[in-house]
């Protein structure tokens, strides 16, 4: 087959002009590598967020309202102190509301003798457990009496428990949180790391009253979790909550909310939006870099053709048709582009894996970028190869051998 023979000549041409071949692959390689990394980061972030949702204990009938303006987990003002127990009481009084859990939260160091670790410490009401539906495997959760008496009791997640107690049984032991001593009264069931590395077990829970008066020494809340009586009522309940909070916080009709809702739908929507934004950026970056790569190939190929004008002339003298020359150079550009694509994919794969491995960014490797890389390199090779290839083929044989 003539076309295969031209392919063979193209391969040899690339072999003989190694420096040019290498230069031609560079642009495509960088383009494809960045494409691979961006896709991997996108996928990684998405799966991290999805895992996060799955581990938030959200049912369709529940939502949270966080203190501070902003969106989802991204609060704009961390110093908002407007959310209080008054809000909780008013929400609890609303129709269609089943459970309301007020929460305070802080990252703190917890210490058992010489062992210590840092974990997320939550001050919550005892309803946290039925709302979250998280089992206590050892000991028990704190109750209303613990709340009323502001007892210094703590329930540990598996991660901090394991870190400071090792194989020992923590139940009944005293640990220090900041400057305050707490008795461990319960251990939470282990959920295990999510795929993306988020650790839901990295937490400790104390009665809200204790956290308010003895540990965090603040009365404002971090967030409130609300469970509706049924999932259809959620929308209405959220509207009610908005009214209650705006009124309680004394917001004028023109002022923005100083709180924000976190709902499964909200998160999903955010994921979709950010995915779309990411995809647009991806499209832009990869288009630009592949265009640059393509232009590099085209220019080097044009130079290469000028250098190899004798070769072209001699081939034509001995029977190469215009089509043969076109094919040979088009094959060169497609092959070089595919080679760049393969190198870029490998580089991207290595980069993504190391991002993940060194915990810099979540990255998830999927097949998509490799398939894309193959398709894109092929197309770039064809588009940017056709001009030089046809130019080579149009050279008249008598002038090329002079």
């Amino acid at each position, binding site marked *: 087959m003539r076309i295969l023979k031209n392919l063979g000549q193209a391969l040899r041409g690339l072999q003989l002009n190694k420096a040019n071949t290498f230069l031609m692959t560079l642009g495509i390689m960088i383009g494809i590598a960045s494409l691979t990394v961006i896709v991997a980061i996108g996928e990684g972030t998405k799966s991290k967020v999805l895992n996060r949702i799955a581990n938030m204990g959200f049912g369709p009938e529940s939502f949270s309202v966080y203190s501070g303006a902003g969106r989802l987990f991204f609060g704009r003002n961390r110093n908002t102190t407007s959310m209080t127990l008054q809000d909780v009481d008013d929400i609890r009084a609303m129709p269609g509301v089943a459970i309301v859990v007020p929460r305070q939260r802080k990252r703190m160091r917890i210490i058992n003798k010489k062992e210590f670790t840092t974990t997320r410490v939550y001050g919550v009401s005892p309803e946290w457990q039925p709302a979250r539906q998280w089992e206590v495997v050892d000991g028990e959760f704190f109750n209303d009496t613990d709340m009323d008496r502001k007892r210094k009791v703590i329930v540990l997640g598996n991660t901090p428990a394991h870190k400071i107690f090792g194989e020992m049984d923590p139940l009944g032991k005293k640990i220090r949180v900041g400057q305050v001593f707490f008795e461990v009264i319960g251990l939470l069931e282990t959920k295990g790391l999510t795929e993306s590395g988020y650790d839901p077990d990295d937490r400790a829970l104390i009665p809200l009253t204790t956290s308010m008066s003895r540990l965090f020494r603040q009365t404002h809340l971090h967030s409130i979790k609300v469970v509706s009586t049924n999932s259809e009522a959620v929308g209405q309940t959220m509207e009610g909550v908005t009214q209650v909070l705006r009124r309680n916080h004394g917001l004028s009709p023109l002022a923005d909310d100083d709180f924000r809702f976190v709902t499964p739908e909200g998160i999903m929507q955010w994921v979709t939006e950010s995915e779309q934004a990411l995809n647009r950026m991806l499209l832009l970056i990869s288009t630009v870099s592949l265009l640059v790569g393509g232009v590099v190939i085209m220019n080097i190929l044009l130079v290469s053709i000028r250098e190899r004008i*004798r*070769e072209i002339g*001699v*081939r*034509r*003298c*001995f*029977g190469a048709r215009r089509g043969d020359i076109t094919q040979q150079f088009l094959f060169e550009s497609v092959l070089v582009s595919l080679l760049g694509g393969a190198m870029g994919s490998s580089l991207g794969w290595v980069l993504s894996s190391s991002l993940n491995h060194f915990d810099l960014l979540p990255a998830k490797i999927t097949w998509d970028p490799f398939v894309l890389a193959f398709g894109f390199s092929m197309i770039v090779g064809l588009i940017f190869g056709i001009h030089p290839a046809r130019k080579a083929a149009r050279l008249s044989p008598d002038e090329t051998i002079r």
Partner: protein
Amino acid sequence: MKISKVIEIDSIIKTYKNEGFETNVLKGISISIGEGDYVSVIGPSGSGKSTLMTILGCLSQATSGTYLLDGEEVGKLRDSELSRIRNEKIGFVFQAFHLLPGVSAFDNVMMPLIYCNKTPADAKERVKQVLIRVGLEHRMAHTPGQLSGGEQQRVTIARSLINNPKIILADEPTGNLDSKNGAEIMSAFDHLNAEGRTIIIITHNPIVSEHARRILTLRDGQIVSDEINENFKESRAGIARAAVK
């Protein structure tokens, strides 16, 4: 004795047009060359010898005039058909060799076979045979850079022979060689002619043109003389012929 004609050109004119002005290079050339003839074309520099060769070699089309090559009218052919004719009927030898750099002698000789419609099954054997004929069986894997000038020109002769063409067209084949290597190359042409191949050699060098049976002189785009070479060494051709048999 009726000799069939492989090349018949009639009133060939070649004009180059560049940015508005025209250069008349060939001004009405008519020649006919019989099969197995041995022709040399001489003439001063710029007289149009190489231009004539590109037309005879189907590398460019005449501006006007007719060209019958082996009975086919070349002027009417499309580029792909011209390519086929070059591939099947003509073998080129150039002053500057024009071998593919970095490619072994073997693969250089193989190159024209790539462009055959059907690569012969015994391609490799054929390449080996022609390389043996030019005495380079021990240099098959060498690239042009690893070969002497004389050896390189022998590779190009092997390459011109690989498709067993009727006509060999050589433009100053000894121009880049010393006299000893030049003589060797010319003796190779003598042998090729002795086995019946039509040979056309363009040259400045009287020693080279003396090898031909017929000498055409070109001046200013016209043929000014067309003579049978009185010194044509029948004896040498005879020796060559004997050697072939």
